[in-house]
């Protein structure tokens, strides 16, 4: 994964998991179609418009609130490739690592619809729409290993945890 490109869906601070996928959708029978419900209360229609590779750019504390793993899973199902936020809530952060959703902790200048490129290995975000570049730090060693393995379950399957 050297480079990912996508269009921006812009959000602000404190996007909670109830916004990402409301509690009333959290029943087992919905697990394979959670993408239909993302942000339905706060951005009606977004779920139907998201294209594969699109990214979310947000402010502080993205993913706060409930521990529902349905949140990162539903975003992956919808085709969201990456979330770039100033900071993440901790349970959402850990959940995302385990289900394979790429998170980039970085403050970037971007508007809805901008073309963004993320280079995870180089720690760079490029906004092609405004020509600006932003740097982000690498994960700690163990966390990088976890991400490279594709989550905790894979580490267990490989006998490495």
């Amino acid at each position, binding site marked *: 994964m050297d480079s990912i490109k996508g269009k921006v869906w812009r959000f602000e601070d*404190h996007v909670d998991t109830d*916004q990402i996928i409301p509690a009333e959708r959290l*029943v087992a029978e919905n697990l394979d179609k959670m993408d239909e419900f993302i942000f339905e209360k706060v951005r009606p229609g977004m779920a139907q418009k998201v294209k594969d590779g699109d990214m979310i750019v947000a402010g*502080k504390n993205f993913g*706060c609130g409930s*521990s529902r*793993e349905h949140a990162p899973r539903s975003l992956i199902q919808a085709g969201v490739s990456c979330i770039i936020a100033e900071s993440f809530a901790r349970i959402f952060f850990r959940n995302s690592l385990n289900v394979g959703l790429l998170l980039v902790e970085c403050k970037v200048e971007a508007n809805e619809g901008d073309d963004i490129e993320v280079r995870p290995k180089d720690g760079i975000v490029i906004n092609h729409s405004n020509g600006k570049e932003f740097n982000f730090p690498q994960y700690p060693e163990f*966390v990088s290993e976890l991400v490279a393995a594709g989550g905790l379950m894979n580490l267990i399957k490989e006998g490495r945890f």
Partner: protein
Amino acid sequence: MKKGKTIAEKILSDKSGVDAYAGQIVNAQVDYVMVNDVTGPIAFREFEELGMEPVRDRMVLIPDHYVPNKDVASAEQAKEMREFARRWSIDNYFEVGRSGVCHQLMIDEGFAAPGRLIVGADSHTCTYGGLGAFSTGVGSTEAAAVFATGRLWFKVPETIKVELTGEFRPGVGGKDLIIRIITDIGVDGATYKAFEFSGDGVGAVPVSDRLTIANMAIEAGGKAGIFPCDKLTEVHIEGTVRGEWTAFDSDDDADYCQVLRYDLGELESMVAFPHLPENGRAVKDADVKIDQAWLGSCTNGRIEDLRIAAEVIKGRKVHPDVRFIVVPASPKVFSQAMEEGLLATFMESGAYVSGPTCGACLGGHMGILASGERCVASTNRNFIGRMGHKDSEVYLAGPGVVAASAVAGKIVTPEQLEVV
């Protein structure tokens, strides 16, 4: 010389066998892992893929969010949990009637205890910090990992010390303190950090209030909210706690990343306005009409909360325009409230009393709000659409304010009720 440790550092050192300090990543032995009916199904599927034996004695399965089954979909989901429990012979599965809000049940059933390391696939697992445990919310996949290995990785958190002095004034309690703290530091003020409560004031905070405070640590982004264990803690768990436990206290020379100080005697009744728990204001400055008052949840659905609310509402009537819904958090709370006559008091006032469930706390069932409706709730979250329609509003407050507001038809303190 070695540095001193916080309670969080001590518990994580004890459970990992590593001399751990903030910032380190440790692999630690977990005492209990809990899942509920919403987070369980994903955990079960992930676990089954591993083809491993579960650590069954340390697993606790609690249906509480959508039970008694709300509809066919939730019935199927509850069945999934029941069948998983049977297939793997998990004794700690609690069927409807013996089940309640997961966190209250973890306490009533004696799983939560001082010094323990507990994870739960529910963000309010941090509640047991009120008893001196290190407990924190995880996702379903991580819960499944613990089912299989009995262990999990943790980044040892930095700790914010909250020094308490004085005593609550009458009518003021744990909910008011935690809303004050979250309002002061913001909903991300403690992200990736633990709170540790200390100081002379701690002894004056009843355990029930400590649980309320620890419960909402996550509402400031906190990983845990930990109280030291004292006589009150021991009395609280006596007779219910399972197995051995060890209390840890912090060292005088432990490192804290931040120190907050509160004089409990200076706090007043608080209410958090929509749509974030950091929007706290003094109740006396609120002028908000309500359609519903909701008493229950892992935050304030304990017997102590019901007693406070019943005392306020005794001999009074629920406002004609208000639905007052009372949901004891567990069977133990329910039967105790029945014995003490509290349920009768609520019903005489015109309240609706239900059996234990998360119910409307998360917008599940039994008290969902329509568009434009406002609810004052003893719960912990007032996010957009949390209790129903996206254009409904939730105001967070303590049990006394919820009961007084049910009578007044607007958000008031019990004292204001006397003047009205």
